[in-house]
């Protein structure tokens, strides 16, 4: 299984990344290669991402109707489930539609992450391991070792300036904010708020801990996610809405 993973996914991706860095200007080779490679992978996954975005949006649009059903069948769980499924069917929405694309993308992200870390070969063990994953090609041989310096970063080391952590956390917050619909349920709203803060903070913390090649990938990925969401979702979505409108809880209080 591990061999299958290595041969079909990891090795092509790793060697592609290294070959790409070999043809880019030396000063920025690997940083730029990560960005281009992330773009290419995201582009390849665009149909899946669009499907996921549409499914999420469709689910959000059904929320008012869902609330009505929850009120109506508050004491009859079986009926509620039945009616909910009926609602999904009528609207042509598959609730798993926003889960599966995410699950499909996940192995690709893991492979991309593995490729970045292996290519950077920050420790002697990593370099030794890298040798077992390279194709026999002059182009790849000449690109090794990759230049780990990019902008102010050493991609093989965590960023000590906190700039990258703020960028990763910030873009993640924006992306999540765009997709998280405000809820009329105050309990769910507070949970949403907590999640909205927790994920960016968590990834901001990871950025301080992990070699910055990985956060660069997260940052680019977040920016592409924001762009995709903007185009497919038709604007800033809930980011703008929640800024211009008072929260439901506040509105109720008034």
């Amino acid at each position: 299984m591990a061999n299958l993973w290595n041969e079909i996914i990891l090795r092509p991706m790793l060697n592609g990344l290294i070959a790409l860095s070999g043809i880019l200007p030396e000063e920025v080779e690997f940083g730029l290669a990560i960005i281009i490679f992330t773009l290419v992978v995201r582009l390849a996954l665009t149909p899946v991402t669009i499907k996921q975005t549409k499914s999420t949006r469709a689910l959000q649009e059904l929320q008012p109707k869902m609330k009505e059903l929850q009120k109506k069948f508050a004491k009859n769980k079986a009926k509620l489930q039945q009616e909910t499924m009926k609602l999904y069917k009528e609207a042509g929405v598959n609730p798993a539609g926003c889960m599966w694309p995410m699950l499909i993308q996940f192995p690709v992200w893991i492979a991309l992450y593995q490729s970045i870390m292996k290519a950077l070969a920050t420790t002697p063990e990593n370099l030794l391991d890298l040798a077992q994953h390279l194709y026999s090609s002059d182009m790849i041989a000449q690109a090794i070792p990759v230049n780990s310096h990019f902008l102010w970063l050493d991609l093989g080391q965590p960023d000590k300036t906190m700039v990258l952590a703020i960028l990763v956390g910030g873009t993640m917050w924006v992306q999540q904010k765009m997709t998280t619909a405000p809820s009329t349920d105050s309990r769910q709203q507070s949970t949403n708020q907590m999640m909205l803060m927790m994920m960016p903070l968590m990834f901001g913390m990871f950025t301080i801990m992990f070699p910055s090649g990985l956060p660069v990938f997260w940052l680019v990925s977040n920016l592409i996610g924001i762009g995709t969401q903007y185009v497919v979702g038709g604007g800033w979505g809930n980011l703008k809405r929640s800024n211009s409108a008072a929260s439901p809880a506040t509105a109720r209080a008034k």
Partner: protein
Amino acid sequence: MKAVRVLIFLALVSVVATGTGCMGNTAPQGFSGIVSSGDTLFVGAADGKVFVMDPDARASGSAFPSNGEWEYAITTPSRGFGCSSSEVAATVYGVPVAGTGQVCVGTYEGKVLMLDETSREANMVFPQVRSGEWAYPRGDEKLGPIVGSPAVAADTVFVSSSISEDRRTTGRVYALDRRYGDELWVSEPLDGKLWATPSVSDGSVYVSTFDGHIYSLSASTGELLPWSYEAEVGFVSSPFVAGGMVYVGTFDRFLYAIQLGAQEPRWQFEGENWFWGAPVVVGDVMYAPCLDGKLYALDAASGKPVWDEPFDAGAAIATSPAVAGDNLVVATKAGDVYFVNSATGNGTRVPNAADEKKATCDAMVVASPCYHQGMVYVRAQNNVLYCIDPVRKKVEFTFSLKME
């Protein structure tokens, strides 16, 4: 809500996988090896430990440490998030250098230590300056990671180290006084990562860098000497100097033989992967291990293969072969140990003591084997020392280096 939960779950899975090394980024473990001096074995082990052992005492199964034996754990200040400072185990890649009652070790955390055998056996506080113990740099200062072994010539210790700063990775060579650890000279910054073991020959120090340079420095002053060699690709292995030639492996899978002073290689030999481990020269023949799993026997003068076929160990050879009489001892990343006849290239695998079908060692071997007083010693990455009888081709005993 489900989406958020799944997202959190996936994030946590990725963090756990990352932390456990499943994602391709392993924390430095070290793969220091074994060296012998006199009747004693000096073993660089995991967790920054150095073991000094009497092979006879280990063979007899005596409790460790017996007379003359000791272990010392090198530690380094923790870089964790805690407010209080703590010490954690250091990482050692280079083989300890032993002689005249002292052991010299370089750590990945950027310290060079000179240990005095008597003081360590007595378990005294390090450093016992009066006994010739020292750490360089002094205090809390550190160099960049030291990956290669120190080289000791006369009264000088040479180490190489590299750091990344101002958007460049540069290496430096340090010359230290063997007795007191005083800095004799520091070379000017050399472009590229410097993980090599310095090679000292005829008053010159030779180092190879990842950006494809071989530099020669004056051993007495550290000044760059006129001769340097520049290749189109980086050098993956340390330079090995013998008979006026420097032998070094490149990232494009070649082994170069360059005459000192020349600007063109005398010969180059292509493997199917990197020549990571240092070659050994016996007489006119060079035995070069390769990560393609083969041991090549080459004419040292011409680079032409000596055997009809290279010896195929079937798994990457990251170690330097040990010479044991007419045999070369080769250890692989799969954990197998082979005795290869130096004349014919025919090899015999040493079976696992518990299960013949399994690899000789129960973990990969990245540290070079050592031949000492008729026996071969191998340290595997499970931190176990294997003693192998070259005549019977059998594991005689094992000794766990995982001691408290």
